[in-house]
């Protein structure tokens, strides 16, 4: 059954930003929002351009009651620019956007929290800019430290396929032909938990705010050489690290989270029965874990 989408008008927020604005780098504008005034500052990182900063909607009101919370729409979605070309979506560009946002809000040091591939720029920030990052929490990290799910490496992304079943939908041609079909499939994989209709609708709505061309550029950008081995980068991380990973994550296996915790000397919390985006599906638990982590840094 097709997913009925939430209305295009954004639903009422529990909390609105106290400040917001753009930072601009090389002509690319990135929209940030600032909530609350506590200590420390918690930077909720953007992830893949499929979604934008509203994916933190269940965290912002709670965390902003205790801390100063900053979010930004990653380039490619939300109110940020949609540049063209893989190089504009590299891991390093996202790290530099993050630093630019921290500079814009005059913040020397922050705790970063990121979902999925946000772990890529999160680790880069913590490894290369230790003075800016007080702690890092990663949820369902999409890191190349352990093998992906085998069903995700069956089909080519660029070649035209003679099937569009299952993960064959993760294919450029299918995206360009039936983006909505891909979205429904992919978002369904994000939420393996039963009774996830609202989370799925939200995410499909955000996915429709960008285009398959942007996502293709972003994927290619992530694959560009980083100039440093990712495992080496993990070893350079000195700040406390928390990894939260669902054991039913159909996008990135728990082994990836475990490997990231191991490589960074961090703590792994396994969520039994959870999928890829527990910050949306089990927000109470994730909020409490983030709070406990931030408190442990004091």
């Amino acid at each position, binding site marked *: 059954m097709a997913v009925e989408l939430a209305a295009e008008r954004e639903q009422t927020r529990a909390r609105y930003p106290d400040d917001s604005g753009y930072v601009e780098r090389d002509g690319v504008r990135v929209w940030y929002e600032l909530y609350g005034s506590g200590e420390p500052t918690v930077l909720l990182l953007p992830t893949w351009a499929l979604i934008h900063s509203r994916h933190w909607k269940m965290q912002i009101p709670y965390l902003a009651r205790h801390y100063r919370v900053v979010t930004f729409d990653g380039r490619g979605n939300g109110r940020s620019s949609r540049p063209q070309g893989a190089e504009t979506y590299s891991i390093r560009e996202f790290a530099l956007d993050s630093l630019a946002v921290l500079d814009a809000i005059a913040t020397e040091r922050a705790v970063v929290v990121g979902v999925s591939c946000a772990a890529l720029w999160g680790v880069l920030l913590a490894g290369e800019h230790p003075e800016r990052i007080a702690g890092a929490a990663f949820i369902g990290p999409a890191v190349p430290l352990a093998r992906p799910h085998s069903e995700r490496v069956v089909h080519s992304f660029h070649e035209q396929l003679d099937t569009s079943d299952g993960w064959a939908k993760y294919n450029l041609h299918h995206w360009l032909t039936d983006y909505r079909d891909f979205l429904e499939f992919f978002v369904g994989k994000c939420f393996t*938990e039963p009774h996830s209709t609202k989370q799925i609708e939200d995410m499909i709505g955000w996915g429709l705010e960008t285009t398959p061309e942007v996502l293709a550029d972003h994927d290619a950008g992530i694959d560009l050489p980083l100039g440093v081995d990712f495992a080496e980068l993990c070893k350079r991380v000195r700040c406390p690290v928390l990894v939260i990973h669902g054991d039913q994550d159909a996008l990135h296996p728990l082994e990836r989270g475990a490997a990231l915790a191991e490589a960074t000397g961090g*703590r792994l919390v396994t969520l*039994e*029965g959870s999928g890829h985006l527990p910050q949306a599906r089990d927000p109470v638990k994730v909020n409490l874990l983030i709070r406990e982590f931030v408190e442990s840094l004091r």
Partner: protein
Amino acid sequence: MIVAAAPREQTRARYPDEDGFVERNGVRIFWERYGETEPTILLPPTWELVHSRCWKMQIPYFARHGRVLTFDPPGNGRSDRPRESAAYERSEVAEYAVAVLDAARVERAIVVSWCDMGESLILAAEHPQRVSGLVFIAPALPVHEREVPEFSFDDELDTDEGWAKENRHYWLRDWSGYVEFFISRMFPEPHSTKAIEDAVGWGLETDAETLLVGFRGWDTKEIDPATTVELCAKVRCPVLVVHGTADELVEPERACSLAAELGGAAVLLEGSGHGPHARDPVKINTMVREFSKSVAPLEPEVGRWTRALNRRKRALYVSSPIGLGHARRDVAIARELRSVVPDLEIDWLAQHPVTAVLEQEGERVHPMSVHLANETGHIESESAEHDLHCFQAIRRMDEILLANFMVFNDLVRDEQYDVWIGDEAWELDYYLHENPEQKRAAYVWLTDFVGWLPMPDGGDRESFLTADYNAEMIEHIARFPRLRDRAVFVGNPDDIVPESFGPDLPTIRDWTEQHYDFAGYVTGFDPKGLEDRDALGYRDDERVCIVTVGGSGVGAHLLRRVVDAYPQAKERVPDLRMIVVAGPRIDPAALPQQDGLEIRSYVHDLYRHLAACDVAVVQGGLTTAMELTANRRPFLYFPLRHHFEQNFHVRHRLGRYGAGRCMDFETDGPSEIAAAIAEELGREVDYLPVETDGAERAAKLIAELL
């Protein structure tokens, strides 16, 4: 009048792994170390009126999470009682602390002080590299000028009333009068009898002469305000200050000013007096643990959380080891519970001898059980010749009960259960009502008696104490009716003694009927087919008498007396076959031998032998007596002296069933026993029948919560 704790130290929940003396300027200071790992928590002494046992509610818990160091002050405990005042200076006590850290080879410690008068502050200020965090419980450190006391310490006064007792001349005249006065002010919380008795006992381990060497009034005992402020400025480590709002000895404002001066957090405990670590140990322990985690982060631990709808149904069964009876009935209830809730997973938090039964039954004993402090060992250590003052023995188990509650509390923080079931798990019931915010699951309380009752020779004091314990329990239930989701009485309303909880308190039966569900008795076995004598090796032409005192070591005297009665009994009943079961804790070789008498150390499935015997001789414990009642066997039972449960509750219940013949260890010698055996043998019993569906009814009551 307060009766101080007995001079013999009560059983500890944990004993030190290392102890010794450090010597400084000729003064020997006794110290103890518990546990091996970091972080270290140093618990320094306070005023020498008390010694290091004042930390008894903290040591076992902290030692499970790290290392603990304590030492006795000069003038009390096992430390010297120097005659030079310099030995009692606060700066000197700080140096004792450094010497203890050195002796225990500890570089840095979190210092948790009680009523600090300067020693901990000096330690943190002057030896910052040795102190990683500082907790002040009810600190006496003055930041502002003190009020001048109402009475002079040195002058002869014309009154002994109230604080006039804090006077050199009164001390010398009536030291215990002062100690009782002072300690009673320390614990203004209702129902503090045990904390008060403990502290009075420690105060009486020293004397006025010793205290006077180091005391000339509080203004000279505590460091002065200017020094306090100066030292505070030097402290760099994290600080937590905790103070009771009802502290009658030190005003809480001192704690607030101190915290402000140190830039630390201040936590006020509403309604607490001067000794919250003794009176509200769960709160203090968990607070200090949180503080310690923030100061000394541990290796990252692996966390696991299961989504609500992915969870299996789980129950945690806490079964009391006191009296072997609980194990069998709890296993029976668990079995019935599984048949009502088939997918239920049951973990047991239990210790020997319950664990022996559980292992036999293939039940899962939770690994945290190894941390439980030994309760049966304590109960045995409290007993004498056929004598167990069970009320006092349970009071003197406060440290063990708290230590075991903390084990439980750690377990249920890490693991989710749908229901906690406590069968006479006193620690669970008591500390949950004292710390209601710790409840995280449905909770079922099971017991086979309600109401502490005084023994006649305990006098007014024991009547007061049992009434106080009952009153506290009644207040707990009235204030927090939500805590026990089910209270299950293992028995029937008629089993309840026709007594009152105490002066101005309800009658036990009325109150229990209002607050409990009744499951009927739970034997844990089906009496049908049990009386097969052949299978047990008993012939039809012999009359079998089984003598047993259960699994405890308390019964050797009774066994000996029954052995002595054997020749006379055999004379009266020529076909008598007497079998004495010594049990696991009594050496059969230590019992006298008689021709024809059989002494066995262990009998497998003893309950089957009891079901098939012609007569039995037992103690007054409920389980064995009710097994005999259910199987309609004649028996003699000897309640343990001073055991209120056996003398009142069990006796009343057996009376209702018309079961058993109550004997008196005081007056019934071998010839009375022999005569009673002869009379009871083969008597047609007219006992009321015992229900066989008790376990099923109890399980149904629990299953409603699942």
